[in-house]
């Protein structure tokens, strides 16, 4: 539903009204405020309040994390449901987490667990589409197909990119170490696609490829080449794909020419002690790099962390790899952000496209379960140290008000100062609001 009761917003985030802004554009009495800038202001027209979160780090546990073994323990349930792990106390009285989340248990006052997240899409690709775009995409062959009939809808990161733009030298929306499934820009177009770092920061030879201008080339020649290229392309007619590629070229050139951007990607400049405490794992080093990118002005970092689809013999991999990696990365990230005074302005979200079945299957694994998943949130205006919502005695369904995909998206956008009811038109003219339905989860807010 679009919120029709809401009062029309007359002010942009900086307190300039639309009418004033138009006047500024017309007379230009504020130096440098050009028409494109005006559009930019219009595009960032927001809720009018000072946003809490300037950036968001989104740790995506792809495949579906077994949150019943981590953040929503059921010690009183039968063995085939509660699983082998014991709950442990945290530094918040009354909040318990799984025994393999012991690092996070020591900082439970800094984050919040949303236990009543629930939706009804039980597929990976379809679920990712739903969670990341807020819209159930239409698939060629139902949930089995990997190919949506339309890839029309923008993902959460692309929306943030469009609404907020970058604050610094790096692109506003970055994915690593792979592109997020359904993390694309949809009908927003290439301009809002993620910059994908296609290599894993945990690798010893990690580098963001092709960023360094070739040493054979002087600065003069680099500029000359760009000038010649521009001259050759001036008159060429561009459409479709070629326009897309042209946008990417502009972005690529910006990256190469900015020393600050190159510095942001330089993970090696972090002290080894800190790197180790994030964990020498893909998720750990991605989380650390995310922090650097947020410092350099990135608005939305999507970290793709796979292998959570634990259908068979799940406990060895959960306790040896998956949970410890997530526990280290998440707890160190939150602490590190706080130490640097960045937690207040950085929202951290850790979730998957779904949870896993409460009942352990006959192959000692847990299957897909979207009806209940615990989501971790920290910083950026999230009320810390609480648990929101609860599930029944088997963690199958929420017993409190269930919060769906649209509610989570709305909450993230609210914290970032983005108006979820804003409407954009598709190339064919159909109006699509940033989020359809849902409401801000008030319980989560400071």
């Amino acid at each position: 539903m679009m919120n029709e009761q809401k009062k029309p917003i007359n002010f942009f985030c900086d307190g300039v009204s639309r009418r004033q802004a138009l006047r500024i554009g017309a007379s230009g009495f504020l130096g440098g405020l050009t028409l494109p800038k005006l559009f930019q202001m219009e595009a960032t027209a927001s809720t009018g309040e000072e946003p809490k979160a300037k950036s968001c780090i989104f740790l995506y546990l792809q495949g579906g994390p077994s949150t019943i073994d981590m953040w929503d323990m059921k010690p009183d349930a039968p063995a085939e449901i509660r699983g082998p792990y014991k709950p442990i106390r945290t530094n918040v009285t009354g909040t318990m987490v799984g025994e393999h989340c012991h690092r996070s248990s020591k900082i439970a006052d800094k984050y919040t667990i949303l236990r009543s997240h629930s939706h009804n899409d039980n597929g990976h690709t379809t679920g990712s589409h739903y969670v990341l775009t807020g819209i159930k995409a239409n698939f060629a062959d139902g949930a089995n197909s990997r190919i949506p009939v339309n890839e029309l809808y923008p993902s959460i990161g692309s929306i943030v990119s469009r609404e907020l733009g970058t604050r610094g030298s790096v692109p506003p929306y970055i994915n690593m170490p792979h592109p997020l499934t359904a993390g694309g820009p949809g009908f927003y177009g290439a301009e809002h696609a993620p910059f994908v770092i296609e290599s894993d920061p945990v690798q010893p030879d990690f580098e963001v490829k092709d960023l360094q201008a070739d040493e054979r080339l002087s600065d003069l020649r680099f500029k000359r080449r760009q000038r010649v290229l521009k001259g050759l392309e001036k008159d060429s007619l561009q459409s479709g794909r070629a326009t897309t590629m042209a946008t990417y070229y502009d972005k690529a050139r910006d990256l190469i020419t900015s020393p600050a951007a190159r510095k942001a990607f330089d993970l090696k400049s972090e002290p080894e002690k800190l790197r180790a405490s994030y964990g020498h794992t893909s998720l750990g080093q991605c989380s650390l790099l995310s922090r650097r990118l947020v410092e350099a002005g990135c608005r939305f970092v999507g970290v793709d962390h796979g292998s959570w689809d634990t259908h068979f013999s799940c406990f060895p991999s959960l306790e040896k790899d998956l949970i410890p990696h997530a526990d280290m990365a998440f707890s160190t990230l939150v602490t590190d952000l706080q130490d640097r005074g960045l937690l207040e302005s950085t929202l951290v979200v850790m979730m998957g496209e779904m949870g896993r079945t409460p009942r352990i299957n006959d192959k000692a694994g847990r299957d897909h379960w979207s009806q209940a998943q615990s989501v971790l949130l920290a910083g950026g205006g999230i009320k810390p140290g609480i648990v929101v919502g609860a599930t029944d005695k088997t963690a199958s369904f929420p017993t409190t008000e269930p919060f769906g995909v649209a509610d989570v998206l709305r909450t993230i956008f609210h914290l970032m100062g983005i108006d979820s009811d804003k409407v954009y038109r598709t190339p064919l003219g159909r109006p699509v609001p940033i989020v359809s339905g849902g409401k801000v989860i008030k319980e989560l807010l400071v």
Partner: protein
Amino acid sequence: MVVEKKITEGTLPYKRLLRWVTEGMNFKSEKSSPVVALEVQPSQFILQPKGNQQLRVTAINTNGDRFCVTSEAEFESNAPNIAGVDRRGGVQAGEIPGEAAVLVRFMGEVNVCRITIPRKDHPFSRPKENNFVDTHVWNKLARLGIPPSELANDSTFMRRVYLDTIGTLPTAEEARKFLLDTSTDKRAKLIDRLLERPEYSDYWAMQWSDLLRVDRDAITAQGAIGMTRWLKRQFAENRPYNEMVREIILAQGSTTAESPAAFYKALGTPEVISRSISQLFLGVRIECAQCHHHPSEKWGQDDYFALAGFFTGVSKKVLPTGSESIVGKIGNDLKNPRTNTLVATRALGEKEGSSLVVTDRRELLANWMMNENNPFFAKSISNRIWSHYFGKGLVEPIDDFRTTNPASNEPLLEELAAYLKKNKYDLKALTKVILNSRTYQLGAGVPSNTSDEQNFSHSINRAMPAEVLLDAISLITGIPEKFNGWPEGIRAIQVWDNRMPSYFLKLFGRPVRASVCECERSNEPSIAQALHLMNAPEIVAKIHSRKGAVRKLAESKLTSTEIISELYLMTLCRFPTPKESEVLEELFKETGQDRRSAVEDALWALLNTKEFVYIH
């Protein structure tokens, strides 16, 4: 969470369900006669923008009785912005011209109704027709009121047909010769020449290796080499397509020999084999029906297991040498796991089970596929070839033929398939018809047709496949790519090893060959691609190499004007426009004596134009 209500209190279905519950929920009625067919009226019609039309749906049961089920049927439009449909079967056209299909579903049966919304503002004048392809395309465009573009110029056509047919750019020499040739049939002659080039078989073997899952990790290096050699020979000899597929389906013997036997090694169980073969050669995706009735087709679980029954005799035998051999034995029927009954082995859409008095039942399936009247086989390959040359199939996705996913131009697809059959499945003959059509040779979109995405009124920009782009850069710079462990000068389209580490190939979307779906090859552009083309040390090294084309040009006797022409022919297959010449002449003036850096900079700029990266 919002749960959509399927049945509202007080409505007819509500009352009906309630009555059934109060009557004791009988699942079977003695008088039941299941629905066997569905009719939609009108099944095809033209609507004006903003117009509307009520559909009528009739169900027919086994006794031949007809019932109106309009209010019970479900409706779904594949393009709601062009024509939407409400729950009662009312169709409303939007303002955008185009075509929509409305899917109608009732009791497991499906049918489809097609709606055309023509544009009115352009009088349609029919261009010249080169062959039947144009006849059908113009027919369709005339009905929609969309004018086709003008013919592409010689250089655009030449670059397109080289890259599409043999995955290779023409050299500057070849390009110049073609452009200066004044004979009127030079396009047709070029098409004939290209189809005889050795790169034709390299390029098509590469594409079929993607489809036949020539994955080193799945079938070993020897297996991959054997399959690649076999495929190259098929295309080099222009083996009739039906014979080639028959050999694949009946493959036997060593999985490392020059044969398609390793295909079976990559696939595994009868279920995986049958659904892969169905998708690949029939264009029918049947995997949904493994667990339940296909949601938008007539295929049920029985159809799925009946088809898989053809492959139950396929087994792998380990030879004393340690290698494996595919053996075709008698085989058996499979059980439908839901009903727990045996399903007689039969092909898709056949009523009768196949008589199985043979030693290898795959032979029966092959016979059925290659039968003159098979509804899928010839259409599926015609659509695949069409899609390669136009960037979009007549049926799209290209391997998803369904009643509910009709071809955008059915008469065209039918005639292409008929032509192929008439010409004994000669793929080159079919390719010639397509390439010689005016439709293939059209230029870029113009304002009056650029929004058309499904009727081939203009050419579209298509990304070069990763291997083709890499080869093009190597050819132009004169510095072949070095592939670890491969002889120097080997081209990316010749490399059988899909796992060979290559950042370039990965970045530009080389598939890992994990499925028989063409969709695995990604052609999405990205910032990382732009960064690489612009700034990768490997590409800079090729441009700057002492042994490369740049050095040769810079040290030659050619004037700057001649060098500029040469660079344009090498990269874009055309001569520069006066404005472009001016920009580059300026560059030569600026660098003065240092011609080398001028040539390097000019080539760098040309390789980074959008015109270079795309097939137009």
